[in-house]
């Protein structure tokens, strides 16, 4: 709270206070009778109000008493109608308030008089401010500053107050009188002005749109300059009037949807004059004001270009690694197959290690490329309608070699009738193969891996279950993280990349599904993913799908 001015006690205030200590309204009425002393008090009151500072000698006033008293009474009336006035006693209790105070704050006279003045202050229940003012007044000083007042209905208004200590003829402190001006609206305008100045400094474009008229009410400097619009023409324009905006209809639809669903916040991207912007839309419903949409447009073209450069670099490096790896892996493969003749047993074992790790390196490169595509939104999804059960059976064949290597068998359940899915079946296969590969790596030799399909009303759950060691509790929360440092992953020996599950998660979520797991240490783990079943897919689609397959 500001305490702008503190003045020492002065004669006018003392005399004024002497009169007012007998009662504000009584004094005010008696002033109108026209004594010099009374006029002095009125002058003091007007000084307080800040309307017309005046100071005249008693002799001059006596000469012009009649005309001046008329003038002063008019000024007093104006003062009384403009300013909120209250008188407080030495105990800090309100003894008098004027009509303006009652009108503005909404209190009844008897609910204020006799109550501590702190009840008016909207500052930590009023005590801190009341205490600070009281301390100043006790020293005989005038207090000036902003005083937020709490109204009867709970509203807070900001007033600028001048509070003068009152003394009797012997100089004894008898209380204080406060004259307050309501500056709430001024503060609001000032705040708005400052806000507008700040918004004009922003690099982001800001739009405010009236939700009813669908016309703009505000745009900051950056937005206006981009569209080559002026403040004046703004209010006749809507989103569809922005010529260089691609997808204006989508933005209008998004706003309609937000209003319909009472949704406060939405994010989207638009292209404006060839520049890509991330758009945050906020639906504003504040008090009695008209509903509005606030748009914040952040230019992300530079960021996208940087991401693309980085992504291209990773992609290029990953691809460039493949050529030497082809020679390394190929040479070792030929040596191991004895294409170059017999090799000693120990050399064979070492070659096998090198070959296995070259394989692992290839997998890592593939996974990095996939992750890069996912994170830059460049992974393509080709949606078709097909039978999930066919895909499950196919995965059994696709993993035949792997199952043989680990001495495992796959047991499939829940595929006795077709389950039509409109999804990217190649990506679903990628996820399934990854989960099967994990299950194989962590299953005891000679065991079984189960694939279970459970069809619900709107979704289908595909589970891959092993009878391995399970996932330790400490690792469970980071199982879908990239290169998660897991305690018992045996990544080096099992040949995993540490990326597979995070890729699976990204793919499943991109397909509108979810992925999870259930595990019991020592008993095994069940990884599952759930995909939505599109409604309305029936026999016709199945027939078409079968025909396509047959052709």
């Amino acid at each position, binding site marked *: 709270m500001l305490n702008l001015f503190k003045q020492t006690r002065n004669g006018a205030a003392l005399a004024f206070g002497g009169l007012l200590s007998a009662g504000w309204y009584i004094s005010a009425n008696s002033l109108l009778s026209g004594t010099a002393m009374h006029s002095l008090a009125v002058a003091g009151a007007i000084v307080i109000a800040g309307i017309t500072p005046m100071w005249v000698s008693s002799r001059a006033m006596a000469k012009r008493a009649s005309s001046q008293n008329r003038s002063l009474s008019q000024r007093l009336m104006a003062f009384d109608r403009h300013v909120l006035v209250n008188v407080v006693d030495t105990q800090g209790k309100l003894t008098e308030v004027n009509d303006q105070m009652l009108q503005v704050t909404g209190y009844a006279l008897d609910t204020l008089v006799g109550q501590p003045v702190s009840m008016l202050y909207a500052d930590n229940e009023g005590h801190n401010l009341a205490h600070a003012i009281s301390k100043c007044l006790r020293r005989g000083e005038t207090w000036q500053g902003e005083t937020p007042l709490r109204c009867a209905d709970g509203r807070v208004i900001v007033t600028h107050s001048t509070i003068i200590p009152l003394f009797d003829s012997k100089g004894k402190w008898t209380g204080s009188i406060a004259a307050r001006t309501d500056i709430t609206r001024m503060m609001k305008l000032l705040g708005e002005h400052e806000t507008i100045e700040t918004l004009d400094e922003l690099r982001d474009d800001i739009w405010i749109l009236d939700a009813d008229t669908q016309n703009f009410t505000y745009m900051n400097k950056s937005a206006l300059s981009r569209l080559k619009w002026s403040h004046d023409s703004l209010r006749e324009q809507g989103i569809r009037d922005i010529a260089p905006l691609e997808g204006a209809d989508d933005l209008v639809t998004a706003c309609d949807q937000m209003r319909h669903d009472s949704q406060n916040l939405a994010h989207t991207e638009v292209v404006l004059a060839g520049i890509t912007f991330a758009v945050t839309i906020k639906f504003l419903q504040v008090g009695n004001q008209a509903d509005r949409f606030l748009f914040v447009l952040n230019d992300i073209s530079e960021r996208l270009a940087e991401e693309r450069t980085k992504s291209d670099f990773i992609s290029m490096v990953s*691809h*460039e690694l*493949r*050529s030497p*790896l*082809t*020679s*390394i*892996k*190929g*040479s070792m*493969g*030929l040596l191991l*197959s004895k*294409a170059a003749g017999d090799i000693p047993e120990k050399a064979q074992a070492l070659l096998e290690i090198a070959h296995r790790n*070259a394989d692992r390196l*290839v997998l890592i490169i*593939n996974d990095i*490329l*996939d992750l890069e*595509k996912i994170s830059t939104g460049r*992974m*393509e999804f*080709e949606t078709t309608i097909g039978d999930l059960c066919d895909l499950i059976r196919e995965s059994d064949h696709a993993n035949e070699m792997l199952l043989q290597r680990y001495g495992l068998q796959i047991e499939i359940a829940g595929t006795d009738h077709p389950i039509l899915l409109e999804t990217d079946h*190649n*990506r679903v296969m*990628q996820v399934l193969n990854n989960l099967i590969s994990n299950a194989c790596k962590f299953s005891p030799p000679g065991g079984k891996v189960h694939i279970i399909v459970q069809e619900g009303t709107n979704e289908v759950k595909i589970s891959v279950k092993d009878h391995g060691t399970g996932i330790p509790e400490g690792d469970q929360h980071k199982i879908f993280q990239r290169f998660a440092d897991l305690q018992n992953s045996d990544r080096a020996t099992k040949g995993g990349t540490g990326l597979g599950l995070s890729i699976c998660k990204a793919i499943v979520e991109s397909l509108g599904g979810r992925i999870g797991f259930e595990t019991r240490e020592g008993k095994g783990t069940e990884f599952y993913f759930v995909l939505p079943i599109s409604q309305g897919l029936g026999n016709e689609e199945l027939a078409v799908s079968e025909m396509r397959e047959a052709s």
Partner: protein
Amino acid sequence: MIKLLHVEDDADIREIAEMSLSLTGEFDIIQCASGEDALSRVADYTPDVILLDMMMPGMTGRQTLEAMRKMPHLADVPAIFMTARAQFDEQEELRKIGAAEVISKPFDPMELGEQIKAAIKK
């Protein structure tokens, strides 16, 4: 014997491919280090299958195949792309431009012959 034209700019990979395919005893191999070299060789030669590296300096594998398809005697010869860029969706794209098969690098030398024979059957 299957007459195979192998176009690959990397000499090491050419050698590994030749050794791998020789092991099967079923391939008669001609190797070229560039698309341009391959085009000059096929003027009086009709292979049973063409194995093309995708990324090469000068003519790419795709450009080489396009030029070969314009030669009547090569219009229907099965072509196999061998590429380090063969990710899931990219393989589909290469098939669309007329590849009978797409083999990812690194390839398995012990399976290369079988992969080529399977592509010819397609």
